[in-house]
């Protein structure tokens, strides 16, 4: 059967025959013309689709700082949101002058904008305590592009030139810039929002057959719950070991660190950086040599060039593995206890 089938050949595999060269060239021209036409048509069509509107500037953090007049601002992403209970922290520190900004999934670009557009204009001079994980401080483009850009827009009345410059691909990498231009000229990503419902509809057909009484929203929620971090396989330790941290000197200038430090210095806002303890550290996974080099270089930079205080919680044994919920988050039920323990063991941050 296979032999017979192979004899059938295929359109794409038919051996090129050599008829008249003029006719072959004409066919190639026709082929290229149609392919090009399709590309142009899709480009034109994608450009007619609306660009996602700019997210509205949200000045509520500024208002909060103005009203609380904090001595300390704790800033970070879910590493802060899942670790600190603001009310507990206030009572433990015996002051109302503390605010906790745990902006979910935020990264260094957002933290820079909070400093620039919320803390500086408030004319307060609180100590900014910035919590970060791993190499977040030197990964300016991570979770800041595409749909994630909306969270930057909420923190700035208009696109910030410094942020946009750092998010744009480096001129030193011409291919990255070319790809960026291509995406500007041919914004095919705008199609995805329109075409996503199609495969979803096919998926709904099958999942409805298996669970008829659930609404699409309930089905999606169930699937999301199923893939919670706690249900996933533990990270492959070998893969972790193979990871090489970058050289700090190579990544510091393109990051927002110099901007955060410069702005804080200019407006006399004291800075503290806290590298949070991760689940891996709590499980006893050692840091790799490249990681250790990166951390030491960063600590030196923060203390010497940035005049900031720096704390690495990697070895804080009181933050035991039992406290963790999903991934590197602290489980919700331990949030208050964690806040109290933090003040007890890391109290020097608040002096």
């Amino acid at each position: 059967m296979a032999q017979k089938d192979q004899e059938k050949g295929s359109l794409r595999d038919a051996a090129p025959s050599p008829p008249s060269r003029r006719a072959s060239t004409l066919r190639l021209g026709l082929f290229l013309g149609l392919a090009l036409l399709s590309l142009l048509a899709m480009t034109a069509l994608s450009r007619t689709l609306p660009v996602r509107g700019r997210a509205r500037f949200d000045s509520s953090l500024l208002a909060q700082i103005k009203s609380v007049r904090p001595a300390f601002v704790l800033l970070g992403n879910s590493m802060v949101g899942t670790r600190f209970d603001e009310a507990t922290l206030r009572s433990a520190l015996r002051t109302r002058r503390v605010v906790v900004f745990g902006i979910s999934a935020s990264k260094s670009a957002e933290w820079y904008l909070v400093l620039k557009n919320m803390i500086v204009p408030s004319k307060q001079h609180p100590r900014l305590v910035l919590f970060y994980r791993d190499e977040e401080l030197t990964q300016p483009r991570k979770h800041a592009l595409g749909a994630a850009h909306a969270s930057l827009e909420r923190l700035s009345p208009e696109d910030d030139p410094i942020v946009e410059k750092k998010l744009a691909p480096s001129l030193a990498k011409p291919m990255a810039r070319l790809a960026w231009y291509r995406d500007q000229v041919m914004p095919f990503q705008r199609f995805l929002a329109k075409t996503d419902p199609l495969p979803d509809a096919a998926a709904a057909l099958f999942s409805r057959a298996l669970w008829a009484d659930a609404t699409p929203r309930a089905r999606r929620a169930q699937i999301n719950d199923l893939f919670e971090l706690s249900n996933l396989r533990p990270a492959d330790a070998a893969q972790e070991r193979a990871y090489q941290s970058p050289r700090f000197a190579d990544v510091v200038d393109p990051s927002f660190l110099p901007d955060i430090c410069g702005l804080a210095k200019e407006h006399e806002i004291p800075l503290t950086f806290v590298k949070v303890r991760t689940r891996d550290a709590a499980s006893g996974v050692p840091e790799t040599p490249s990681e250790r080099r990166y951390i030491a270089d960063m600590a030196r930079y923060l203390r010497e060039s940035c005049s900031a205080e720096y704390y690495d919680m990697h070895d804080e044994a009181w933050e035991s593995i039992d406290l963790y919920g999903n991934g590197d988050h602290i489980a919700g039920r331990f949030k208050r206890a964690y806040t109290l323990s933090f003040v007890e063991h890391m109290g020097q941050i608040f002096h």
Partner: protein
Amino acid sequence: MIFHSLDFAVFLVVFLAIYWCLPHRAQNVFLLVGSYFFYGYIHPWFLILLFASTVGDYSFALGMRRFPARKRLLLVCSLCANLGLLSFFKYFNFFVDNALLLAAHLHVALSRPTLNIVLPVGISFYTFQSLSYTIDVYRGRLEPRRNFIDVAAFLALFPQLVAGPIERATHVLPQVERPRHFDPEAARLGLLLMVWGLFKKLVIADNVALIANKVFSLSLPGFALVWVGTLAFCVQIYADFSAYSDIARGTARLLGFELMKNFDHPYLSQTPAEFWRRWHISLSSWFRDYVYIPLGGNRGSKPRMYFNLFLTFLLSGFWHGASWNYVMWGAYHGLLLIVFRTLEDWAPSVFRIRWLGPLRVVCMFALVNLGWLMFRETDIHQLLRDLALRPGADSPAQRMAAGHFLGLVVFYSLPLLADGALYLTRTYARARATLSWALLEGSAAALLIAGMALFYSDIPSDFIYFQF
């Protein structure tokens, strides 16, 4: 450099523009330079290995002609050099880990040597291609070449250097040596293959990869999820690998080369033997010609033939990766072949009844999927857990998620099903070099381009076979 990158598109356009302006000898030099640039684009130091392998086999082959009495010794040298290189870079950690495990079992304390070995991309492919050159020279099927540029250009030919098809010197070297002229017909068919390959990679493989990766990231997936995940992987690996082969063959046609077909609708196979005549054809025929036949093939007794088959597939499994699950996958396919051969001898009529054909295809597809589960689950404990799962014990959420993913897999597989239908209805066989067919093929390409713009995955992944 990867095929679905802008870097490659720019490289190819510039390369072709210069390549077709050059005379034949200069074309070969430029092809070699371009191929080395392509391969060393991200990790230039990998070029040292490729160059060493080329110089070695070029010299061994020439030596075979000069010192016929030492032919065998030179072949052994070539085998040791190529397989030694492959063993060190691909299997060192595997051997060390297993030796340590065995030592621990025997209560012998050994410390692990700390060597951080990075697997050079494509080493499994080009070492096999290079070996085929020296083995064919040894067997007298090919004259050793004096022109180093020609041999090096054949071994480094960039369209197929990283993930095949694993070509034979007897097929490609004459094409390197022959003057090549731009053929618009070959270019058109090459472009069509490239567009189809890109579509399979960007739309089908990368989208279903998300499902397979999601399912196999769960620590305790249920029965339904495991098998939907396996089905997603089955679609992914075919779309991904055949896409690479199509783009490679299409690119080669733009350069004036004809590479061998690597996939021929493998999921329409009715028996394991047929599957291996349709799946990764260049590798299976390599193992057939250079391992199975030298072992004795089917010339000896039945038990001997079965042993040869089993050993060949065991080695083929091990070629795929330094992990026991690949060995298990190879052994499984070897056993399948033996069982089917026995059945064909015992009840040949079952395999001849025409109306049972579709049922045989379905059965074979299910057996292939069982193999893919072994291939995808690199952790043996997890694999054994998956294989022990029974239907009916899944939670409603897991069943519903399985249904959701199944819908997505079916949706993204529709173009592959259409391709299969066109193949079965012999539409491809009717293709002619006429204007109306060119119009049809151009329209198909236009549709595929539109499909890519509409449904590409915004989370791209590398070609699976890069890791082998």
